[in-house]
């Protein structure tokens, strides 16, 4: 089925070879009758494979509901899924989606490295792209100061900021020594740096007694736990988020680190929440679920339905990557439909982009919007863990909700300066 489509496309592109010099918009009138084709770039294998899988499931849920409701402005949505691997090969997939498949929109991308490479590429190809994730703070300022075609998710530091604020709010004055154990790459570095900057801002006196940087995806953390024990920290801040997180929990528990004398803050633990069993994940930890907390007591019917269907289909509970994917799809839908209504004809890509700026939507995890500078704003959920639930893993007993405008630097600002100078509420 795909090959016949490709044959048709080849014929069309062969005939329209001149179009090679123009922006790679979807062909006008010709394509409007058919489905809206959306290219999805997401990891399938390797360390991020499970995250990409969850995201894709959220995306598919969105598309099923959209199509059941008649599609986007009357046109059904069709997904073309490509694998996100490394920047070089992922850019090639992007080119295939944009130049060959001529998709109407590209969504996806989880790795920061890939998003940093893909952003400029998408801009140059004038291809409307909505990232699910990726892009940590520092790199973006260099590569994409004012994107036109690319829309980004919330900045990763949001969860670090929120966890740090919760640490200050709940535990200020209760700890003197601090340790960090964070994965040794940009995400981990940014998280811990944000944490320390925020402690400093709120005048929380602390001493860093251990600063661990385990290799991403490492499966043996006994030495790290031993070093943490030796340092005797009052509080441990960790942005571990892959399979290494449950391993750390288990190891730390086995070494006696979880006996209550040490406080823990895990901004990104929600990725692995179902693997963190009660027997080694204690109560009283600050735990982050980002934009989707599956067990939210007053969740919207939309979220409840999603969690229910997800659990029935996949025998697991979703984490926030599904919400990021859903959010992207909803933002696109809202933009297209608003632009269509305003124009009373099928909108151009620029019309859609204009309509997407500032659009407000309801995502799985709660309300959100797309800022005018193409950065998403969503609702974040973190809290203190409890064992009082019907699962074999902890959930949030005390839930704190914050919105991106409290956690994210405003348009144009520098992240570190913002932390220093802004009025950040606890």
């Amino acid at each position: 089925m795909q090959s016949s489509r490709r044959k048709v496309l080849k014929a069309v592109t062969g005939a329209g070879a001149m179009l090679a010099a123009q922006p790679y918009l979807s062909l006008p009138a010709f394509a409007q009758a058919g489905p809206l084709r959306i290219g999805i770039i997401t990891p399938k294998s390797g360390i991020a494979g499970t995250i990409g899988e969850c995201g894709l499931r959220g995306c598919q849920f969105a598309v099923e509901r959209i199509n059941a409701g008649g599609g986007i402005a009357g046109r059904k949505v069709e997904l073309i899924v490509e694998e996100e691997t490394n920047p070089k090969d992922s850019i090639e997939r992007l080119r295939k989606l944009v130049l060959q498949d001529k998709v109407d929109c590209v969504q996806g991308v989880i790795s920061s490295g890939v998003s940093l490479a893909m952003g400029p590429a998408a801009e140059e190809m004038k291809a409307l792209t909505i990232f699910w994730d990726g892009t940590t703070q520092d790199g973006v300022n260099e590569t994409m100061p004012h994107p036109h075609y690319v829309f980004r998710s919330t900045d990763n530091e949001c969860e670090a900021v929120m966890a740090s604020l919760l640490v200050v709010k709940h535990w200020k004055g209760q700890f003197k020594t601090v340790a960090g154990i964070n994965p040794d790459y940009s995400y981990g570095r940014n998280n811990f740096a944000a944490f320390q900057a925020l402690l400093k801002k709120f005048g929380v006196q602390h001493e860093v007694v251990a600063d661990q940087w385990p290799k991403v995806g490492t499966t043996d953390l006994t030495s790290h736990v031993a070093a943490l024990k030796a340092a005797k920290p009052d509080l441990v801040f960790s942005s571990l988020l892959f399979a290494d997180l449950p391993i750390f929990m288990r190891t730390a528990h086995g070494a006696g680190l979880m006996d209550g004398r040490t406080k823990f803050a895990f901004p990104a633990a929600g990725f692995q929440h179902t693997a963190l069993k009660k027997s080694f994940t204690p109560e009283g930890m600050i735990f982050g679920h980002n934009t989707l907390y599956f067990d939210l007591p007053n969740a919207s019917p939309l979220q409840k339905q999603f969690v229910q269907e997800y659990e029935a289909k996949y025998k697991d509970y979703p984490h926030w990557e599904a919400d990021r994917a859903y959010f992207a799809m909803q933002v696109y839908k809202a933009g297209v439909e608003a632009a269509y209504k305003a124009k009373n004809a099928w909108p151009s890509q620029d019309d859609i982009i204009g309509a997407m700026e500032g659009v407000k939507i309801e995502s799985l995890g709660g309300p959100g919007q797309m800022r005018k500078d193409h950065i998403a704003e969503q609702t974040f959920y973190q809290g203190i863990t409890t064992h009082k639930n019907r699962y074999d893993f902890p959930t949030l007993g005390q839930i704190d909700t914050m919105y991106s405008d409290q956690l994210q630097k405003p348009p144009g600002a520098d992240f570190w300066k913002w932390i220093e100078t802004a009025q950040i509420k606890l």
Partner: protein
Amino acid sequence: MSAFFDILLGGVFHAAVLFLVAAGLQLIFGVQKIVNLACGSFYALGAYFGVSAVAFAVSVGAPAYLFLPILLVAGLALGVIGPPIEALLRTVYRRDEAFQLLLTFALVLMFQDILRFFFGANPQQLGDMVMLYGTLSAGTVLVPTYNALVIVASIAIAFGLGAFLKRTRFGRILRATAENREMSQAVGVNVGRVYATVFTLGTVLGTVGGALVVPTAAASLDMPVELVVEAFAVVVIGGLGSMRGALIGALIVGMMRALAIRYYAELEMLAIYVVVIAVLIARPAGLFGRPVE
């Protein structure tokens, strides 16, 4: 003082894990001169299959504390993949070693998708089963009993293999074949059967290693490509073909890493390479290897 023991135990545990990953590689190279790039894949397969086997056993009513023998059996059972893979490799024995290396690289590629197909993209773990055997404690030094068992197991495997190679008749045949294949064949050794056995044994070392370690770790899709590096580093340090070298090499890497983590955490990722280069400059054949010319 207890901190010292914690760190020491952490280093020894990591050494045990490294040895289990590298042992199969070392054995297969020592006898057949094949470098098995798929050693990490076998280890990952053992880990995944081990988790599945235990989960299945528990679901049909087996008591959870039997998970260690179940893992061992699961790892050993995977030995069945040894002979067919060896038969495939046999087609390129006579040819340039590059082809053998490439064939095992092809296996790595195939295994990545095989693992994903059968076990999915989610990392597989055995929850907290590792705690079922309790914890050994001496003062404030706490070691999960299972971790101690892994250390004991890898030492047992190391010495067992060593004894097997040195003392038993088959071991002597193996070593003779490794030294000089034509001569062994001339004196009547069925080289084909020897190679098949050795390869299967090396495979089993990998799968059993993966299964044994998985309660303390996890099975994830990046293991096949990530572990190869550590296995190679251990083998380079210890000397190609030397079991003793693999053990000592693993110990050095494990301890260096543990010390780096404690005292200079930034160095952790690079610690293993520092040791490799130091050994290469000082003793090019590895600590216990013979010069490969």
